[in-house]
């Protein structure tokens, strides 16, 4: 009796484990789960925002806070790490991510002023960082190929080095920067390399970033997950 009961219990456990395993496999087949990605990307900002300068003490005077003018258009290159939740290989919920990029390409110093002192912005030192926020999207898969589109928000920060003239020399300004909220669309085309990995090319036009339709991001993304 005891042995029978033990065997029955064991069979229940095995059955539950098999059921759980099959269920998990079934979910995997349906493409549900967490997705991760690494991306190398290029960003284009046709309009770099005006930058805020905090009050800064230089060797000759204290400069009250102010703003530096837009550096115009800049290109960036950088990396991104991102995550998303995929439901049945169709519904994609971008979760959280982070990206950082540095300015690339030729750019000349930009002269302006802050609180009466002649300032020099150095666009070649510009950086941008993004904290990617949740959004919503879809994915369509055909054999090893898939295409997807999503829309999401993000917090973006842009900054660069700047100095002010001080007598015959110059003094550094506390790093001028500007933070804001943005929203972008993301369209990707992917090829699955194995059951887990995909390589994707993506284009993500900015819907809003310090202004409507302010450039965007494009690059290659290595995704892993369902």
């Amino acid at each position: 009796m005891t042995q029978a009961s033990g065997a029955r219990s064991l069979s229940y456990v095995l059955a539950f484990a098999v059921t759980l395993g099959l269920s998990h496999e079934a979910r995997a087949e349906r493409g549900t789960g967490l997705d991760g990605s690494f991306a190398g990307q290029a960003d284009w900002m046709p309009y770099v925002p005006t930058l805020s300068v905090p009050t800064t003490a230089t060797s000759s005077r204290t400069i009250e806070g102010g703003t530096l003018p837009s550096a115009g258009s800049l290109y960036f290159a950088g990396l991104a790490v991102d995550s998303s939740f995929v439901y049945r290989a169709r519904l994609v919920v971008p979760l959280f991510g982070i990206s950082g990029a540095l300015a690339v390409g030729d750019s000349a110093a930009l002269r302006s002023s802050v609180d009466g002192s002649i300032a020099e912005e150095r666009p070649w030192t510009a950086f941008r960082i993004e904290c990617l926020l949740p959004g919503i999207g879809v994915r369509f898969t055909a054999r090893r190929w898939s295409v997807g589109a999503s829309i999401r928000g993000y917090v973006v920060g842009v900054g660069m080095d700047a100095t002010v003239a001080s007598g015959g020399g110059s003094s550094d300004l506390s790093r001028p920067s500007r933070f804001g909220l943005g929203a972008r669309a993301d369209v990707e085309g992917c090829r699955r390399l194995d059951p887990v990995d995909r390589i994707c090319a993506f284009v993500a036009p900015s819907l809003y970033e310090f202004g409507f339709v302010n450039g965007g991001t494009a690059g290659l993304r290595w995704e892993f997950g369902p």
Partner: protein
Amino acid sequence: MRAHRGAFVLLVAGSLTACNGQSGEVNDFGGVGAVDVPVRRGTVVLLSCAVDAAQRAALQSSPVKKLVRDVIFLCFQIDARGDAQPASAAARKAFADQTASLSGLGYAVKVGVGLAGATRPSGKPKAASPLASASFRAKVARSLQDVATIGDGVELDLRDLPYAVRDDVTELVIGFATSPRPIKTLGVLVPPSAPNAAGLALGNAVDVAAIAGHVDRVRVMTLDYSLGASPGPTIDSGWAVDSARLALAETGSTPVDLAMPLYGWQFNGSSEATITFPSARSLESDAGAPLERAPSGAPWFSYSEPHGSGGEVWFDDATSTVLTLAAWPTTVLPAGVGVVFYDLGAEDPGVWNALAEAPP
């Protein structure tokens, strides 16, 4: 395999970042770009009683007429006896003709009178300044009344005065300002109160708060920023703003001007001398010295002489002048603050067109 793919992504991003040109980094001033120069009431100062051909041509040109309203002849001095020099009738007559000629061009012509010569005690050491005497001040006032018959106003140059005569000068200015006089306006040229590169705040020698209510305009002479310190620019735009703010805090409703130098300085060892733009460029050419620009935009070069000595020359040109004036938007300095262009004739000939063409 995954690691290789990850490395590929990193390589792409790293390569793109390495393409950064940094064109502005190495000795590349990069130009002025589009800067706005607010329209301000303009004044030019001439350091002689006669107008030479180049100065006349400038004053007749459209850009200068557009930018400048007042012309100050800073060519009279009160001497140790209390007389205004030049005193000869012929010199005064010639000067009056000059002022009439410029008035005909539409300028308000002001007679600048320096007081520094009246403050020096003669003879005995430890002697008090003549200005301490009420009778001497009365004589100076009479001399000023005589000069004031010429032109549209008088500008008293209160620079280079010792602190010891501060109260005497205040009494003199107020006494002259409140006396019946044939002039239309009275202005004062005062030293800046913000510390310059040598750490000197020269404005203490003049009681601007006491004087301001009795004059029509206070002109803060933000010149010679680097004098007494290591070689450097003739003006620092931020220092000028600080000086203007200090003056504005004392002058109440009396309008304030800032000065923009049109000349430069030649620092040669321990000696310093002013230099005009053409002379600076000529020296630069003769010395074969590469012209550089400070972060303020001010051009400068260093040179050496055959016997081993040498120096540096700092001056202003159209680029640095535009940058300096563009650093004074109305959000930083009220629109009522004017600009005194100091030493007409010493300037880069291109400065007037550059200022006139700059967007306001």
